[in-house]
């Protein structure tokens, strides 16, 4: 009897291994090497020369501000196509990553081949210092002009900064419909927010200050918003019911939580909403430029973008890539892509952030 069970278990395990191998093989087989280059489906990922040189280099160093668990899944998918190209990740929050890179560069030990940062300011600083290597990925024409610096940095995706409410504690008809609605006195003490600091909240401040006429921050401040240090902390507070309405960045896993049945509803404000756009670039001093090009091209390809959108609960700025599950198509939404000039205006940033903090009661 026991032996029979053992045989059955062994059979199941063997079938599982076989199925897994087949899946892996099938996935790996998707990248096709032709004379014109490497293709995934019909999309050109890199020319043959770049691909062969990338294989010779055999790996690359990725410095990223995307969360590690998400990035690791991206790497696994990339390596399922290109198993001979090993990717080592260095991950930190935007500011910490930037400081690390500046220190490494000063010490002459910067290893980064590819950088992804959440704040355009950091990549632009690298661009101005000529630390970025020019590279135009095959998918370049598919990305909107405002979202990229042609040949230098490109959007890894776009996360919507919108409104959300607790669907059990707030009736749909009472829920906020627009930004100013969060300033309704009925939300006093129940309004949440994320500390203003990184690129995401700066995109929101830019939108509110440049696109909305009302003094939204003053109205929010009058409701004494409860501020959290991260988007993750805010999302947990909303789900637990500690705050019942808030502005959110979808990157904090909202679509995934929604799918799991968490009591949250997302609201796309009537007057529009900003997109927060992390960017990717190729580092000039990197030792593996071809592997890095291959990686960036794949990251910006339909497959890379589809996977990343799902993982981060966001949109791709490519029209041919579907958004994360439970998100409507971006085209149907009144979205706003921040003007890079506005995002990069440091003086204005200090002024507006200080004013917003003051309105919220922060020193």
């Amino acid at each position, binding site marked *: 009897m026991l032996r029979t069970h053992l045989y059955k278990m062994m059979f199941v395990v063997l079938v599982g291994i076989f199925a897994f191998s087949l899946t892996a093989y099938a996935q790996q087989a998707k990248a096709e090497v032709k004379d014109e280059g490497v293709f995934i489906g019909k999309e050109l990922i890199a020319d043959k020369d770049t691909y062969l040189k990338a294989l010779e280099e055999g790996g690359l160093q990725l410095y990223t501000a995307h969360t590690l668990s998400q990035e690791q899944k991206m790497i696994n998918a990339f390596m399922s196509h290109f198993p001979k190209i090993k990717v080592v990740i260095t991950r930190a929050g935007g*500011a*910490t990553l930037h*400081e690390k890179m*500046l220190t490494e560069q000063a010490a002459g030990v910067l290893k980064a081949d590819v950088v992804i940062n959440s704040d355009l300011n950091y990549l632009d600083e690298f661009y101005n210092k000529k630390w970025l290597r020019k590279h135009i990925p095959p998918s370049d024409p598919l990305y909107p002009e405002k979202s990229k610096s042609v040949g230098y940095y490109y959007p890894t995706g776009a996360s919507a900064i919108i409104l959300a409410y607790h669907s059990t504690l707030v009736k749909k008809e009472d829920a906020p419909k627009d930004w100013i609605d969060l300033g309704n006195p009925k939300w006093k003490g129940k309004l949440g927010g994320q500390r203003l600091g990184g690129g995401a909240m700066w995109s929101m401040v830019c939108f509110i200050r440049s696109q909305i006429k009302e003094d939204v921050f003053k109205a929010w401040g009058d409701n004494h918003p409860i*501020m959290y*240090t991260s988007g993750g*902390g805010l999302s947990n507070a909303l789900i637990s019911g*500690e705050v019942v309405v808030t502005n959110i960045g979808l990157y904090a896993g*909202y679509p995934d939580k929604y799918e*799991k049945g968490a009591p949250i509803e997302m609201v796309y404000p009537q007057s529009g909403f900003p997109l927060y756009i992390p960017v990717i670039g190729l580092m000039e001093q990197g030792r593996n430029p071809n592997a890095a090009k291959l990686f960036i091209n794949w990251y910006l390809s339909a497959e890379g973008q589809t996977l990343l959108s799902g993982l981060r609960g966001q949109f791709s700025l490519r029209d041919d890539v579907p958004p994360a599950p439970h998100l409507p198509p971006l085209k149907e939404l009144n979205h706003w892509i921040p003007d890079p000039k506005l995002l990069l205006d440091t003086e204005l940033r200090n002024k507006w952030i200080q004013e917003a903090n003051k309105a919220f009661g922060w020193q």
Partner: protein
Amino acid sequence: MPDIPAETAASHGPRNSKDNKLLIILRNYGGFWIILPMFLVLIFLIVYPYFILIYGSFTDEPPRQLSFSFQALTLEKYRLIFASTQFWVALKNTLITSLGGMIFALIIGVWLAWLTARTDIIGKKIIGLAAIVPLFLPAFIGALAWSYLGSPRVGIINVFLREFGLPFTFNIYSLWGIMFVFGLYYTPYVYMFTSGSLNRMDPALEEASAIAGASNWQTTFRVTFPLILPAITSSAILVYILMCEVFAVPAILGQPAKLYFVPTVIYNWVRGAPPHDLNLASAMGILLIVVVSILLYIQSRILRKRSFVTVAGKGIRPKVVSLRWARIPCFITALLYLLVAVVLPYTVLIQSALRDYLYIPNVAAFFSSATMSLKNFQSVLNDSLFWTALWNTISMAVFVGIVGGGLYLIISYMIHKTKLPGRELLNYICILPIAVAGLVKGMAYLWAWISLPIGIYGTVWILILAYISRFTPQGLRAVSSSMVQIHPELEEASRISGCGVMGTIWKILFPLVKPGIFSAVTLVMLLCVRELSTSIFLYTSKSIVMTVLVYDLWESGQWGPVAVTALCLSLVLLGLVTLTRIVLKSELAGQK
């Protein structure tokens, strides 16, 4: 402080030639050549990184390169700090909250230590375990768990209070709430320091007190506690400083209530909205050195000219106080701590780990299994990063515990048992890492070691060195609290009997301080496993550790996987502590 009287030792009994040579070196060269290598090690590990940090606080540009210009020095950053009202508010909040937390931790820690070490209370093992289990959670996970328990609107405690019609609201987002969490999570430090001292104490003085007619309570307060004053003050100062520099607790529990603390202000300058001012952060980070120096001065004044030698040549059988009718009430107080510090936060973690999301509007929802599943466990355990982080965490903690423990033992011996020149300076250098705020420590190590052509950057070795450096104060204090209690008569007796210096260290001193060494190893391992702020600056995906993974998951809002990883982290810590206890027991059994 008891020192090895080299001259006295040399005048007693037979000696072997190797030992004579050592004594001659000690006498002729004043021990300079013996202490020099230790100074070099500590300069590399501690002085150099912190010098860079201090230098950075006096300049306008972060010291990213190994080039120093004294013309660039400026006091501007300090002027800005002192002119900022935010700083004074933050400093006041930090000092007051840490004081409250320290008093709370002292009361609970000494109480639990005394109960387990010197009374006939029931369930000593349970209480002993309860007293250290909060150490198994990184502070920021503990703070997150308490935000779920004690948030005013939907905190689980408040949900229960409302359900039972009790008209109270527990608000963890307040100064009192932060003091409370500080107290809970730093009690184990006080417990570990004081219980070690109580266990090793010679009962002669207590017996004398009893013979003189003092009651048990009078003896406890007039003899026992004064004798363990070094351990109490050491742990008080240690926890106070740790509370001053910890970021996660005030950030998670203070920010929703708009309460500022020094570490949260530093955070804004390091990771807030650009442009960042790392020099300002460095300046504020090292301002804690002033606070620490004052505290250490107070400690030295308290302990001046008093002897705390409590381990002499006689057998040690600590006097046990009979609690009689108070056994049960005392046990209940210990259980209350167990409930608040262990059961409640772990209940939140288990609930979170088993649920797709955590929303507990009423008591029924708390016990409902509707949204329960093992999905979070599956997602974490199927992630290769988790296993990499687990392996890195365990291997680094064990390595740092053993190597660091050995280093701290040697330093402690040099400081407390020799007359080597510069030993006081050695002591001050070792305290330095604790005086600097955690958030800027990572930057200090990064700036200091990255340019050195030794190839450690980007490997686990830079993390290992940073941990050994960072935890020197804690590890050294754990060893030293045992070391200062060893009466010199034991070593003298050994030498009179013909045993050399090294032989005496190996056969007499080492076995007696073994519990202290194991405490140090355990403590350092625990601290390594919990460490975050330095690791986040120095890791790559190859050298990732568990806390970084937890933080990463938290940043992306994955509270369920955070809870699973935190529970695994606690299991790792429990495993390490159990292992060291087993080894210690077998070692002590072997000695007998």
